[in-house]
């Protein structure tokens, strides 16, 4: 398939389907040196109104400039469905999306990056620093440590759960299997004692003992205020992450944002992780339109997470198990307003576009 070749004419699937054939453009073919930046992610909101196209760092792949959406460098666009459909008929390079679900291009995951996807993401951000992320491959295909692998798997699973959440038609079997995997990892990490839980104040809230740790951890993702600091931040403030220059103005609108989440009080006590599990399963139940809005509100935050993690915008120089989750924490602190724009770095440019919903 050549770059620029459009999808099958007349097919309702513009580029492929997550379960079926994934149309691949050489732009997305796995490069010999796999790099998490040369990937294309498309998202479809629950309501197919706004299509969001994220494309990162086209300079890595010379084919990218041909793509009209990526010309001009690192760009993200929020386009209406009609605009995007118009583009597709003009035959841009290999989009992978379906009108119903978000799709990550097959090329994004190569067979060889066993458990190293996030490790590489970490590496890329800290490429300027001399020391390497623990266990990350530095050119050679060194296997990361078991704990890093496990952490990567956990991150990947949480991301997949978020994706499930965003799918228009969530596959319950897949969600259940991924959720069980996450629980399994978390149980093992709890047994190992590597799960850093904030003990007293949160312990009482979680109804299920074994999910206390996840409860706290993921709550810290969604609530930036100090009442529940992120467990992996020694300094107690999850929002200021080295390398992620968040403008001070950004912190002001935090409270309305968190109140949006806090409004969902019935779920709060069960914690963010449970919340996403709940939402996954409850999506399948009948919902009132009001709660659907809440659902989409959380979809927004999950985009931060996904984007932060997958485009390597972890923004942390600290290595180790906590950093992947830090991505969630840091990404979630991005402001809902577009006040911080021009003078921010690549990371914030990306995050801010996400916020512009």
């Amino acid at each position, binding site marked *: 398939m050549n770059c620029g070749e459009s999808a099958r004419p007349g097919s309702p699937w513009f580029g492929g389907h997550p379960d*079926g054939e*994934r149309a691949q453009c050489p732009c997305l073919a796995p490069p010999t040196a796999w790099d998490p930046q040369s990937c294309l992610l498309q998202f479809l909101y629950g309501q197919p109104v706004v299509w969001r196209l994220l494309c990162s760092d086209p300079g890595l792949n010379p084919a990218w400039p041909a793509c009209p959406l990526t010309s001009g460098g690192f760009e993200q666009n929020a386009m209406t469905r009609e605009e995007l459909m118009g583009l597709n008929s003009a035959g841009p390079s290999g989009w992978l999306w379906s009108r119903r679900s978000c799709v990550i291009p097959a090329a994004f995951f190569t067979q*060889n990056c*066993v458990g190293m996807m996030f490790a590489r993401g970490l590496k890329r951000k800290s490429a300027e620093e001399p020391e390497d992320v623990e266990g990350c491959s530095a050119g050679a295909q060194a296997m990361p440590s078991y704990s890093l692998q496990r952490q990567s798997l956990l991150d990947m699973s949480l991301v997949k759960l978020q994706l499930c959440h965003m799918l228009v038609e969530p596959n319950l079997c897949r969600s259940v*299997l991924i959720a*069980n995997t996450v629980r399994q990892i978390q149980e093992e990490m709890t047994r190992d004692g590597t799960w850093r839980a904030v003990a007293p104040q949160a312990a009482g809230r979680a109804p299920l003992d074994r999910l206390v740790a996840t409860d706290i951890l993921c709550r810290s993702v969604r609530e930036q205020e100090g009442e529940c600091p992120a467990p992996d931040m020694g300094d107690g403030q999850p929002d200021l992450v080295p390398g992620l220059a968040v403008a001070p103005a950004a912190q002001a609108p935090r409270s309305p944002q968190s109140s949006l989440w806090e409004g969902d009080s019935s779920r709060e006590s069960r914690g963010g992780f449970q919340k996403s599990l709940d939402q996954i399963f*409850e*999506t399948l*139940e009948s919902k009132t339109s009001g709660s659907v809005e809440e659902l989409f509100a959380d979809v927004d935050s999950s985009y931060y997470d996904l984007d932060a993690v997958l485009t390597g915008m972890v923004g942390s120089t600290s290595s180790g198990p906590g950093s992947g989750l830090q991505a969630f924490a840091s990404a979630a602190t991005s402001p809902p307003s577009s006040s911080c724009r021009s003078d921010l770095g690549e990371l914030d440019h990306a995050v801010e576009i996400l916020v512009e919903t």
Partner: protein
Amino acid sequence: MRGFWNKVFNLEVVCCPCLLKADIISTVEFNHSGELLATGDKGGRVVIFQQEQENKIQSHSRGEYNVYSTFQSHEPEFDYLKSLEIEEKINKIRWLPQKNAAQFLLSTNDKTIKLWKISERDKRPEGYNLKEEDGRYRDPTTVTTLRVPVFRPMDLMVEASPRRIFANAHTYHINSISINSDYETYLSADDLRINLWHLEITDRSFNIVDIKPANMEELTEVITAAEFHPNSCNTFVYSSSKGTIRLCDMRASALCDRHSKLFEEPEDPSNRSFFSEIISSISDVKFSHSGRYMMTRDYLSVKIWDLNMENRPVETYQVHEYLRSKLCSLYENDCIFDKFECCWNGSDSVVMTGSYNNFFRMFDRNTKRDITLEASRENNKPRTVLKPRKVCASGKRKKDEISVDSLDFNKKILHTAWHPKENIIAVATTNNLYIFQDKVN
């Protein structure tokens, strides 16, 4: 019929009716005589192929399959309450046994099951008194004589009409339908519930299995497949995402939440990983024609169970063990969630299932031989004999072997079907349908 398996498996390509307007094939099923082969696709269409009547001159081959009928079974719908689209993809097709000239099949998408009648019309009435041949009404005053309309032959027309629509009974996505041996009832299974229907009654169904927990947070297991026993009309099985199969007897109680038998193989501790549960999830369960055995397909293997022994399968066949070391990558790209189907041959001596790279595998239960074959257009013209393939797991790759890393995980064979009487198989790649038969000398 000559012995099917020679020294080596010989499979001759009979024909390859590649669906030109390719939409992704989502189910393949022979009817009870094997004369008809139905395929469903992601676009909600059903295409039925019919075997040519055997040409007496060309007695060396069985008939080829040609398109018999195409119809749109399901349309995309929108659930306004949940703001979710309902896919029109056909998840399963099951044929009813033929009772009269017409054929009947059940087809289902995620939410709605439909009973279709496929009938032939090869005669039409001519000679109406009040109508012209093109259908326009004649002026009655011009009618001077009367004649009796007669049937005259016409080109064969195959019509499909929906006879029953069984809707609004499933909250979750339907994954299986199975017709009972009484040919009056059938079951439909979604992720959490199984319903029993009567073929004549569309406004009611009985819920016979419900594994939905009171609190959805506690959900850890879903139903992945269900099937009625081929002979006992009160017995059915359902498989779960945790690798268990439950056999239920509908005579025991109205709600079959308590199984009569639970089939589960204890986990092998040496193979334990974070992916153990996912790869143990059963994607398909099929009774043997005899009814004595059942076959389950999980991610890496096919297992044959004797219904009388619950604690372990009687036979296990590894489909693609070389993937065990790649589970993390397969988890990343979601291939680990692929649901492969499996099927028996007519005599229950051979089982078949699909794999990646357009490979499919057959296992002979008697000789314990197995073979890997590929369904691809490049290598197969009609009448060519399929060459066995081999995947090299590690180390030195021999000539003609394919290394694991060069497998194409986008080319997967999820759906296969075996003719109920003859050695003809239908194999569906993503967009193409291949039909193979054994080499008859």
